[in-house]
């Protein structure tokens, strides 16, 4: 049961049940929807950007514990970050959840987000962990289009 415990860590179950930054953001400069048509998970991201800094972000949607916790942790962690910082974290995070043998320093840089590394052993769930992140990327690229994530 250890891999499973690794995946469903307490903090994930907590964020999955009680997502932070959940809700609408009236002053948002961008709204982006992300959807996984294979499982129906859906995230709507609202973000308020000011001079390349994401000053606030919130999300709505429905999905499994992993995708909701990932969105919740992401919003917590990226609030107040600049585009450059976000890009770096995005890349770190993506490697962290998809690749084995990532250097230990990643862990430090990722902080709380580190708990999502458990999906590595569950390839079918990686797309849950990354849905919010791909949605964010689409938002920042200003595509503002319907985004489907099917890894």
């Amino acid at each position: 049961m250890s891999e499973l415990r690794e995946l469903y860590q307490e903090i994930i179950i907590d964020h999955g049940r009680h997502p932070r930054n959940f809700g609408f953001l009236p002053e948002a400069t961008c709204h982006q929807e992300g959807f996984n048509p294979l499982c129906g998970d859906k995230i709507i991201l609202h973000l308020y950007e000011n001079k390349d800094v994401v000053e606030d972000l919130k999300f709505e949607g429905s999905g499994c514990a992993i995708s909701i916790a990932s969105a919740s942790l992401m919003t917590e962690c990226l609030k107040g970050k600049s585009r450059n910082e976000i890009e770096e974290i995005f890349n770190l995070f993506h490697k962290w959840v998809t690749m084995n043998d990532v250097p230990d320093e990643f862990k430090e840089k990722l902080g709380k987000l580190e708990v999502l590394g458990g999906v590595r052993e569950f390839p079918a769930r990686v797309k849950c962990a990354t849905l919010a992140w791909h949605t964010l990327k689409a938002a920042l690229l200003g595509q503002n289009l319907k985004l489907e994530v099917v890894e």
Partner: protein
Amino acid sequence: MQVYKKDFPIFSQTIHGKPLVYLDSSSTSQKPSCVIEAIAHYYQHNYANVHRGVYELSERSTHLYEKTRKKVQWFINAAHTHEILFTRGTTESINLVAQSYGRTHFKAEDEIILSEMEHHSNIVPWCMLQEQLGIKLKIIPVLETGELDLLAYEKLFSSRTKMVAISHASNVLGTINPLKKIIAIAHAAKVPVLVDGAQAFPHMPVDMQLLDCDFYTFSAHKAYGPTGIGILYGKTALLEKMVPYQGGGSMIEKVSFKKITYGQLPYKFEAGTPNMAGVVGFYAALDYLEKMGMKAIVQHEQELLAYATSKLKAIPGVRLLGTAPDKVGVLSFVLNDIHPHDIGTILDHEGIAIRAGHHCAMPLMEKYQIPACVRLSFGLYNSREDVDAFVAGMQKVHEVFN
């Protein structure tokens, strides 16, 4: 019945160190050795293109191919072998009818009756006609029990109704629809009926003469047969009036750039080199079903369904979707605030394969106001022990989330 499992090589493995408990047969069924061997044997000994060669291998191949058509005819009690068409699967069969029958018989404002419990395969082809021709869809609502609202159904008919397309059994609710009644009502209004039998075929006797539907379709891969093979049954009179769906080799009589004359039934609808190995393998699956006996299969699966239903109901927080009295071995549910995917992952870790998601039935999810649900579904190889393993797995779910 436990002995069935031995016929299916997939069960000789463990998953995450646990014996495989496969509870996703509605999605696709596992294959008995005899089917796997029939395919290999065909490629090893009798393989060639059908219908075309004057040589021995081609004759054998043609013989095996057409023998399957006869067997299907016998199995579903169709009046003629040429009423049995080989397609890729249920999805293609329904698209074939929608395009080939629909495009010539329907016009703008004509109406098609579907139900709220249809699989996307029996929704999207009609929606495409909605866009292409401007037809309208009329939807039979589903009652809280998972049964169709037949009173509402009768009221959907109008002088513009041109087709009823309805599933024999629901892939989410398990409900077996009262087809005889549904078809009689449609026929009284002179409306033909297409039945999506994907969830019915290997789980109950299916008889074209008894049902009297106009089209019936199912997939071999859900009936212990190979992938890439489906059946479309159609009444001769309707098939003859239909234009071909795809053009190519073997479906023609004469070809020039100015004029094509098409071949006879069933070839008119079988363009190109068919999935011959799929057809040959399906014969073995039908043979297997015959040997096991439809009556014994139904009894076994119904017993399992009853057992699993009582067990599932006893789990706190479970909300069962579909409680019709007449069901196939399909059980869908949601559990408190725990998402179906999380349940799926935890059960998988116990070697238990169930399906989590919308099950290609988004309108039904909408109706029940849920984004997804968990489904377990039975094949003839399942046993009470599988249900017990599932119940134990649900206990793990509980542990992880509490």
